[in-house]
């Protein structure tokens, strides 16, 4: 039973999502509780998996667990791999999903059909993409999460969303085709799609085939960079993220991290120190694109006029800084920098998630969410449909919710600006320390990256403080009614960010262990083949029976 825990984060939302399709869409209370229990179960399991990955490493093992799907031996079948990085991403996903779901309960979940099922299928894709150890399986989980995200982006309908959704789908379909080209080229050259198997073979590829393999990984990388929102493949991102409904926008904050995760996992596995002649491939491109992405996001924040666009641009900045660090890590930048970047990634996902949840309550003029929803329904030609209940919104209201909201906002701003004592500062210090240590030709570029890291913090501070003053200080109207269900998720995210500061040492120790494990690829690359099918015992038993 215990070893089957790894597949639970994929199966639980899958079963929950399918189960909810059977209910009529008006049974929202039932659906909400099914979704919440599914996500809480995922959160508990993810925490359990983190503990397993951590203890496994501390007791001398590698902390990597493998799960052979269908009990096929490694290069033949598909494996799920649980290591510290994927366990960490699972917890992050489950936590963000919990707060987004509770937020959606305040009213957004009524704005379209199949919200809860799509939400669960999105989680299937996300968890699967973090767990899989097979390239084609990664493609399948990407498609699952993308298909769910298409539906969720259109949630609430309306001209703006459909237009943004059209661009989003077109771009992601094209990126998926590039993904397929990359995967099939890799198969054509090496004859395997298992990531661990590939990592073993990468140094032994014939010199004549190596350019083809590099081209394949480059094409694959383009597909991931589209998801990660790297410049110049990111022009779709701000308008798409702004168009999405608030709880969906918060979930989209982690979707760019899937692209980052795939780049991090594959580049360090394939082109790390064990890569032979391919070692360090793509590092300079990642650094250059990361810097360009940061610059683009930085200018975007300064030019933005509303908090939605700022939130979307902070996603770009976060992606850009992570790409830079991955690039330097490929060049042998050391574990400390990567550990800081992973720490920063957790925090920035939470902070941008909080910003997306804050967008709508902060921009609400008066009349609360009910008026807003009525307005959207009107604009989208849904006025013929009367609201089912008397109250559009649910849950207790808080008259003086604005100060609480401002508290959550301040925490998010302090994080994104990289000011102490919040984890944004700790993460940036760790990254800058690593970048300062870079010498040689790359030294100047590392200094440029440091400048961009600091300037992006300044830009986030200027942009967000401007919005904050407009909303919280110069607003003389009576504060609009806010619901406890809207404020609680924001405060939960803010509390999680504060916890990351209090527990900074423990978190950093975990991310340092993760970074070390990412650099030492042998445990991953050879461990997969050490995993034996579990059937041998059972089959022996059945054979023994008459």
């Amino acid at each position, binding site marked *: 039973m215990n070893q089957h825990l790894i597949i639970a984060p994929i199966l639980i939302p899958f079963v929950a999502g399918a189960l909810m399709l059977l209910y009529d869409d008006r049974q929202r209370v039932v659906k909400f509780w099914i979704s919440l229990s599914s996500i809480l179960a995922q959160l508990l399991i993810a925490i359990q998996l983190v503990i397993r990955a951590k203890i496994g490493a501390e007791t001398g093992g590698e902390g990597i667990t493998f799960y052979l799907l269908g009990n096929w031996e490694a290069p033949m079948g598909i494996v799920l791999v649980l290591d510290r990085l994927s366990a960490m991403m699972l917890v992050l996903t489950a936590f963000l999903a919990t707060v987004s779901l509770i937020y959606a309960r305040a009213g957004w979940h009524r704005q379209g059909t199949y919200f809860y099922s799509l939400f669960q299928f999105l989680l299937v894709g996300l968890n699967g993409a973090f767990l899989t150890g097979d390239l*084609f399986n990664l493609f*399948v989980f990407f*498609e699952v999460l*993308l*298909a769910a995200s*298409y*539906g969720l982006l*259109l949630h609430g*309908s*309306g*001209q703006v969303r*459909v*237009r943004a*959704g*059209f*661009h989003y*789908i*077109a771009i992601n*379909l*094209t990126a*998926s*085709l590039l993904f*397929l*080209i990359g*995967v*099939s*080229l890799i*198969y*054509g050259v090496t004859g395997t*799609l298992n990531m661990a198997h590939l990592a073993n073979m990468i140094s032994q590829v014939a010199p004549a085939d190596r350019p083809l393999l590099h081209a394949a990984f480059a094409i694959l990388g383009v597909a991931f960079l589209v998801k990660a929102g790297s410049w110049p493949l990111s022009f779709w991102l701000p308008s798409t993220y702004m168009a999405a409904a608030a709880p969906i926008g918060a979930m989209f904050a982690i979707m760019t991290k899937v692209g980052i995760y795939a780049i991090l996992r594959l580049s360090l596995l394939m082109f790390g120190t064990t890569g032979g002649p391919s070692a360090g491939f793509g590092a300079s491109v990642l650094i250059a694109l990361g810097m360009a992405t940061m610059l683009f996001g930085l200018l975007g924040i300064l030019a933005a006029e509303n908090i939605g666009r700022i939130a979307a641009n902070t996603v770009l900045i976060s992606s850009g800084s992570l790409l830079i660090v991955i690039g330097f890590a490929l060049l042998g930048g050391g574990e400390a920098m990567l550990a800081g970047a992973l720490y920063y990634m957790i925090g920035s996902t939470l902070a941008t998630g909080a910003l997306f949840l804050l967008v709508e309550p902060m921009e609400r003029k008066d009349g609360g969410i009910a008026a807003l929803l009525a307005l959207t329904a009107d604009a*989208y*030609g849904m006025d013929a449909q009367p609201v089912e209940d008397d109250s559009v919104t649910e849950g207790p209201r808080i008259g003086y919710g604005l100060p609480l909201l401002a508290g959550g906002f301040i925490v998010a701003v302090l994080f994104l600006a990289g000011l102490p004592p919040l984890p944004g500062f700790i993460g940036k210090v760790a990254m800058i320390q690593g970048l300062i240590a870079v010498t040689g030709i790359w030294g100047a570029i590392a200094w440029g990256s440091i400048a961009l890291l600091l300037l992006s913090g300044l830009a986030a501070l200027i942009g967000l403080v401007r919005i904050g003053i407009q909303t919280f200080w110069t607003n003389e109207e009576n504060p609009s009614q806010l619901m406890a269900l809207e404020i609680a998720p924001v405060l939960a995210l803010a509390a999680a960010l504060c916890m990351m500061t209090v527990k900074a040492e423990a978190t950093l120790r975990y991310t340092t262990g993760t970074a070390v494990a990412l650099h030492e690829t042998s445990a991953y690359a050879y461990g997969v083949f050490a995993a034996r099918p579990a059937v041998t015992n059972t089959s022996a038993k059945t054979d023994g029976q008459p």
Partner: protein
Amino acid sequence: MELILSGAVGVLAASGIWLILRPRSFQVIVGLCLLSYAVNLFIFSMGRLTPGAPPIMPKGGFVDPTLYADPVPQALVLTAIVISFATTALFLVVLIGLRGLTGTDHVNGKEKSEA
């Protein structure tokens, strides 16, 4: 055979890319279809072209793998066809929704002159 297949992939991909860059939403969707055909053929060709060879080996005994076609790309192609078919259908729904909401079939939801 290699020449015909690579030519087909090339022509399909080229027309697909050209159509994707067109301003009408229907052209984009047809372009994506053509591009996905090109990609599917490409995946298929990655298993090397072996005419008349079965992909499934008989059970038991020694088998010479050179007499058989590689089954993996064929399985991949099936998955890719199913996924691209489903997402294209979904995309078609969004296309019709965009046409209905904006009254135009321009990809940006408005004609260039109005911009």
